[in-house]
């Protein structure tokens, strides 16, 4: 079905707020090419379960599309309009299954060598949208904190090699109460600027005591959900005819209740907003690669997704020890309590994870004013990056983490 034939009643399966949103913009959607529209609907269909920053982004994008004249729309989507689609794709139920359509479109673009053309069209669209709808100013400069090296006495290789050129390396950090100081600072920011899902704490192991104002995700808290997911996967892959595409579709349909998360995070009853976080956590496990088996991968991917989706003002990520590599089936079936750990490997993973956290933070609005701190937990080394921090320098000044944070602001 071509987009021009879209009708309001085709969106009855959408959650209420998503349905209201897309039907309000139906005329706008009808003008978009099929190579583009399902990508937009893939985001819109989950509108009810998106973070505030994501909701605002969809609203602003739709409003902008609505403001374009017919001629402008044609111009903006010229590249997408030139993408050739198969009859199978044209006949696909892309209204109700936009994510599956996009997966199939992806495969089709690769096989027909149109991926580069799609990529060019997408880049052009993104740039135009960015110019037409610039990001709004932040309530406060963004702060990222990453804590690495839990349980490691001495690194085998120098730490922070990728981050040092961007800030100041402090070699005499006073580590006492360091984690608490960092969590207190994050909590203080949350109280000063109480934005829903605006201040996060992600832990790759057992979460430390923290302020309830923080949105918290931890690997340990999700252990029961991971176990349920692993057993579901094991059952599914043994079914005749099961393949990666089918499995992926099944994983995409998993909801918090399917993983016994109906009580929400922390055992609290599901309240408004918790469903958003629970769905986010399910996606970490069903869409992330390696998040089910390696805590370091989980922490890095959770941070990436939190930054991409929630765009928090504050993000503290603490890496923990991951299990040693074993055959995939064994890792999927094991539990953390019995797993042999890999401290040095975990530290290397976390070190690059810290770098990726910074890179992903700097992709967001307000990057020029953003700050970042990475600390080797319970040790005396840290790197601080920010507008007031000279790049590629070292300092032997003794200071605790609270003091370092004060220098960044």
């Amino acid at each position, binding site marked *: 079905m071509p987009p021009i034939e879209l009708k309001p009643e085709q969106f009855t399966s959408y959650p209420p707020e998503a349905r209201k949103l897309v039907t309000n913009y139906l005329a706008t959607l009808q003008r978009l090419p099929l190579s583009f529209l399902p*990508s937009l609907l893939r985001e819109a269909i989950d509108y009810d379960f998106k973070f505030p920053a*994501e909701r605002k*982004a*969809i609203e602003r*994008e739709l409003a902008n599309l609505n403001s374009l004249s017919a001629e402008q729309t044609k111009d903006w989507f010229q590249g997408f309009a030139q993408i050739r689609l198969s009859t199978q794709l044209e006949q696909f139920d892309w209204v109700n299954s936009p994510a599956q359509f*996009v997966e*199939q479109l*992806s*495969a089709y*673009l*690769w*096989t027909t*060598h149109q*991926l*580069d053309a799609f*990529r060019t069209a*997408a*880049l052009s669209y*993104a*740039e135009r949208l*960015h110019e037409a*709808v610039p990001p709004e100013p932040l309530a406060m400069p963004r702060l990222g904190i990453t804590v690495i090296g839990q349980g490691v006495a001495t690194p085998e290789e120098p730490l922070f090699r990728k981050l040092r050129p961007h800030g100041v390396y402090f070699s005499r950090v006073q580590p006492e109460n360091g984690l608490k100081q960092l969590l207190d600072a994050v909590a203080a920011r949350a109280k000063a600027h109480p934005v829903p899902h605006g201040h996060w704490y992600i832990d790759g192991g057992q979460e430390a005591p923290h302020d309830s104002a923080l949105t918290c995700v931890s690997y340990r808290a999700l252990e029961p959900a991971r176990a349920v997911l692993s057993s579901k*996967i094991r059952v599914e*892959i043994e079914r005749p005819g*099961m*393949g*990666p*595409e089918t*499995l*992926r579709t099944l994983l995409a349909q998993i909801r918090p209740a399917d993983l016994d998360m109906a009580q929400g995070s922390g055992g609290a009853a599901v309240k408004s907003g918790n469903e958003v976080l629970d769905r986010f956590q399910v996606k970490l496990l069903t869409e*992330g*690669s*390696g998040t089910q*088996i*390696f805590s*370091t*991968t989980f922490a*890095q991917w959770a941070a*990436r*997704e939190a*930054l*991409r989706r929630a765009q928090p003002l504050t993000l503290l990520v603490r890496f923990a020890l991951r299990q040693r*590599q*074993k*055959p*995939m089936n*064994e890792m*999927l079936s094991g539990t953390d309590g019995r797993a042999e750990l890999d401290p*040095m*490997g*975990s*530290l*290397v*993973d976390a*070190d*690059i*994870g810290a770098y*990726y956290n910074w890179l*992903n933070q700097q*992709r967001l609005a307000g990057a020029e004013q953003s700050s970042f701190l990475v600390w080797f937990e319970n040790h005396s080394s840290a790197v601080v990056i920010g507008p007031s921090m000279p790049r590629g320098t070292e300092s032997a000044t003794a200071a605790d983490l609270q003091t370092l944070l004060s220098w960044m602001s």
Partner: protein
Amino acid sequence: MTYHMSSQPKTARNSGSLSIPKLKDLRSNSWELARQMAFSRREFLRSAAGVTLGGTLFGSGLLPRGGIPQRKRKVVVITFGGGARDQETFAPEGQENIPHLMRELIPQSTFFTQVVNRGILGHYVATASLATGVYETINNFASLPPEHPTAFEYFRKDLKRPSSDTWVVAPSNGFNRIGESNHRSYGPGLGARVILPKHLLTAATSGSADCEHLLRDNYETPFYAPELGGSEFELQQLEMLLKLSVDDFKKHARTLSSPDELSVYVTRQLMRQLAPSLLWITLHDIDIAHAGAYSLYIEGIRRTDRLCAEIWKTIQTEPEYAGNTTVFILPDFGRDSDDDSGGNGFQHHRTGDALSRTTWMMAMGAGVREGVVIDRTLESTDLVPSIGSILGFSAALAQGKPIAELV
């Protein structure tokens, strides 16, 4: 902007995505970046390994291969398993991970700095494309043969060679159909014998736990492995062809630390017992990167570097191979760049950006000039026609062209 850095859909036919990179990236031309990366490789190799820019030497004469009778010529292809990026290999900060390539192999090789893969970036389909010289579009995770004739089929049909003269040692069950295509003019009965060491070990150990560390498989879709089909190497042939008892095989396997080490062990046996003229080894340990653990990815690179050197040493010491063998070492493709927000850095190869498509190739041994760097762009489909020129077959249906500097 909701599409930025979106999570990556992965499909069976490929490992691609439709995400849109961050706006900062839009202002740089990724192919230009790829060219710059190739330039960096060249500059680095010139300074670190003391090699010469090929353009200045090209045309001054090739090393003679003519002295080697065609029947005696051998080619060994090693895919530098699972894709590695420059920053963990040839860039200054990555060179510590590839000491054997840098110090031992590159000085003896002609190094091509820019080999572009314009096909689908999934390991099976990309390796199949390398083997056919055509960008294959088959399902990456299904048990399907390539659609175009493989180098093995050209080799056997044109030169009337027996099946024992060309072998593939492949990393995972998903590669079991790579030995021969379903092309109507070639196909069944004309391909290579395929040996899947992990499959062999599974059969040999009857599922016991003591060698499970060697059975890691299919990192792109860790939850799923296609069922076996085709003409994979059977356990009973272990003793008959490789002169290796099941007990010895198991005993030695227990001393190894990775699936690729097992592949190299089997490769050595194959070379000693059967000495195939066209041998293809696909290493794969590096692809553990899909699990997101950087330390394991780096370990994989270091191990692959060591194993490449070990294979080269074996070639130099085995009488059937020494002096008459041309070796190609190349990745099937790279991995996503840190700068592309559509990916997640080293973890995957899903963005299809220029850096993940642009890799390198090393040629060494018989007929290859040593210590030369070639800058011009090659396509990964050029490999099969080049092998054809060396061994004396015509890759009639391949899209690529013979590499002039090698033939």
